[in-house]
């Protein structure tokens, strides 16, 4: 027998590509082994999934599952940085594009591609193949679905979200099982699920996608990066797998608070704090850009993760695997569908095509009569928000009065129209006068003006919507013609109805005896419909 060597070699992993991360005392060789043995699923390869997939691939997660049914688009690359222009040009599926890029970063791990959207049919079968899930999706219905599936299957869930300049991050179902009291350590309950934190979804009108309201790349990128960080912490500490198999070291809690040691081994009173991180890049006070807030714990009567006796007491039945897979829970209906507003009667609505004709073919206007230019085209009030109006197609000569302003000021938001009407009589309204309707009392509309100036900024100017300063005589001097119609227009024909209704209420309040307006109503289907009908066509064909 050869003599035992005096110098034992370092474990191979120590000198591996993962050396720099396993140097951390919290990781070490053992933590890296956990990572290499772990299976992580990322659902959604957008702004959150982009950095998350790259970092988890780099960290050496053994199996990285990527799930998404969408294709890469150029307009998303400002934040979806795992993808490439080439992938966008080819219209590649996001999972393929992301996997290719991750492989360039780390070819030593296994990638599993799920080229489909998360649904009740596929979610359980797919999540079951993994230890931990990252929810990088973009809508509430899918978030509830993923959370329920994770609870049913006992998987920890790292959940992130971002829109505009804000993001949030929360670790759910963690630990996925109650941890029994061990020697020198109190046990603790399993963590809350998405339903515990958000028992009911927000109303559908508050749910607008990033493509509508915008998102800053670095903001969603920070949240996606933090999600990867949380996933790594959970896995390294062995908290992603059911108890017993991994006696964990002292740094087993990925949550901030350490469990207290109680000699009597009764379950500890002190549960780990469940926290949520809020990030607001435009925080009014920059010291509040990142906030970690303390969240409620698990709800004993939660439909997904609650206790049997608490649910039974309330006569509630639990969401089980069968309930999900048999489609007995309609997640879309639970989260609601944004229904079209029905405020105006049909007689106050004009189709997009007919409206365009009033704007382009004076002789075929709504009323079939000949007016001078303004009369025919009427007044077009665009109720999109200021920045939306700026960025969108617009009706020539339209006036922008944002809905938020109308809802804030009520009828007085229309004061400007009194002036416009008068100017119109003088023929001064040009095709390009997209007047921003800011009155003296309402400066810096749309910007944070700080607490000092938040007082009542908008006073009733008490202007009636009569032609201001125009005498009766002047009015009769203008050619005998019908008063101009007022058309309200918005993205989809919902806000425009609300705005038109407010306008009508204002007129009624003013006393409509001699009101100077003709037909008042909105354009059905808004810009979506207008753009469909405004394709260049043979001018005769529409008649």
């Amino acid at each position, binding site marked *: 027998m050869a003599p035992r060597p005096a110098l034992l070699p370092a474990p191979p992993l120590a000198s591996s590509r993962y050396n720099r991360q396993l140097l951390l005392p919290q990781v070490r060789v053992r933590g890296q082994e956990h990572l290499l043995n772990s299976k992580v699923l990322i659902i*959604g390869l*957008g*702004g*959150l*999934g982009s950095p998350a997939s790259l970092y988890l691939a780099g960290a050496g997660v053994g199996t990285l599952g990527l799930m998404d049914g969408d294709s890469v688009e150029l307009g998303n690359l400002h934040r979806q940085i795992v993808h490439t222009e080439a992938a966008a040009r080819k219209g590649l599926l996001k999972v393929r594009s992301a996997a290719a890029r991750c492989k360039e970063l780390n070819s030593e791990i296994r990638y599993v591609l799920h080229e489909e959207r998360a649904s009740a049919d596929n979610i359980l079968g797919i999540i079951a193949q993994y230890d931990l899930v990252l*929810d*990088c*999706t*973009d*809508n*509430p219905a899918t*978030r509830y679905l993923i959370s329920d599936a994770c609870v049913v299957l006992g998987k920890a869930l790292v959940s*992130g*979200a*971002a*829109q*505009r300049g*804000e*993001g*949030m991050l929360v670790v759910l179902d963690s630990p996925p099982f109650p941890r029994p009291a061990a020697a020198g350590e109190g046990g603790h309950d399993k963590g809350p699920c998405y339903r515990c*934190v*958000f028992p*009911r*979804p*927000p*109303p559908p*009108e*508050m*749910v607008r*996608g*990033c493509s509508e*309201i915008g*998102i800053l790349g670095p903001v*969603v990128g920070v949240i996606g990066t933090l999600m990867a960080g949380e996933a790594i912490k959970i896995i390294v500490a062995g908290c992603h797998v059911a108890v017993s198999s991994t006696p964990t070291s002292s740094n087993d809690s990925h949550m901030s608070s350490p469990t207290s040691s109680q000699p009597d081994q009764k379950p500890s009173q002190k549960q780990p704090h469940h926290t*949520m991180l*809020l990030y*607001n890049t435009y*925080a*009014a*006070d920059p010291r509040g850009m990142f*906030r*970690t*807030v*303390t*969240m*409620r714990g698990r709800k004993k009567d939660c439909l997904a993760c609650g206790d049997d006796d608490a649910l039974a007491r309330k006569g509630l039945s639990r969401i089980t695997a069968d309930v999900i897979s048999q489609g007995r829970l309609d997640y879309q209906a639970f989260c609601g569908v944004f229904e079209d507003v029905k405020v105006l009667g049909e007689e106050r609505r004009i189709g997009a095509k007919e409206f365009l004709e009033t704007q382009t073919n004076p002789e075929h206007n709504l009323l079939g009569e000949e007016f001078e230019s303004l009369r025919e085209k009427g007044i077009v009030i665009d109720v999109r928000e200021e920045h939306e109006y700026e960025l969108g197609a617009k009706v020539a000569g339209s006036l922008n009065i944002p809905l*938020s302003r109308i*809802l*804030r*000021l*009520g009828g007085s938001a229309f004061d400007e129209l009194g002036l416009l009407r008068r100017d119109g009589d003088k023929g001064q309204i040009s095709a390009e006068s997209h007047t921003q309707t800011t009155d003296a009392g309402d400066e810096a509309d*749309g*910007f*944070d*003006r*700080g*607490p000092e100036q*938040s007082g009542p*900024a*908008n006073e009733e100017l008490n202007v009636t919507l009569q032609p201001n300063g125009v005498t009766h005589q002047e009015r009769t001097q203008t050619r005998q013609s019908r008063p101009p119609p007022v058309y309200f227009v918005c993205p989809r024909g919902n806000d425009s109805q609300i705005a038109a209704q407010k306008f009508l209420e204002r007129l009624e309040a003013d006393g409509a005896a001699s009101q100077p307006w003709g037909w008042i109503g909105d354009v059905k289907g808004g810009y979506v419909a207008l753009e469909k009908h405004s394709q260049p066509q043979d001018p005769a064909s529409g008649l």
Partner: protein
Amino acid sequence: MSDTVTITVEFSGGLEMLFDHVTKHELTLSKHAADTDGKAPTVGYLVKYICDQLMKDSRKELFVLDGAVRPGILVLINDSDWELEGEHEYELQNRDNILFVSTLHGG
């Protein structure tokens, strides 16, 4: 003892749109307001006050629904879920920070 409580109220997650895009508000509430009985006003009172006084936007249902803060809004009292602090009944104290944040769902 002062007759008023001064607190900071913040809105985020898109809720600020209902408040003229102002995210941070300093509010001074009287302890003798109609329904506070000379006691410190509660968060429940604050919610009503915000709805009636602070909010100019008419879409009240995007903040309060059926008399309660609408689903999807987290209420944080000094950075702690209001459920841990007594919800509506929490009595406001000077310099308290109340944050209303609407859930984000984009990704």
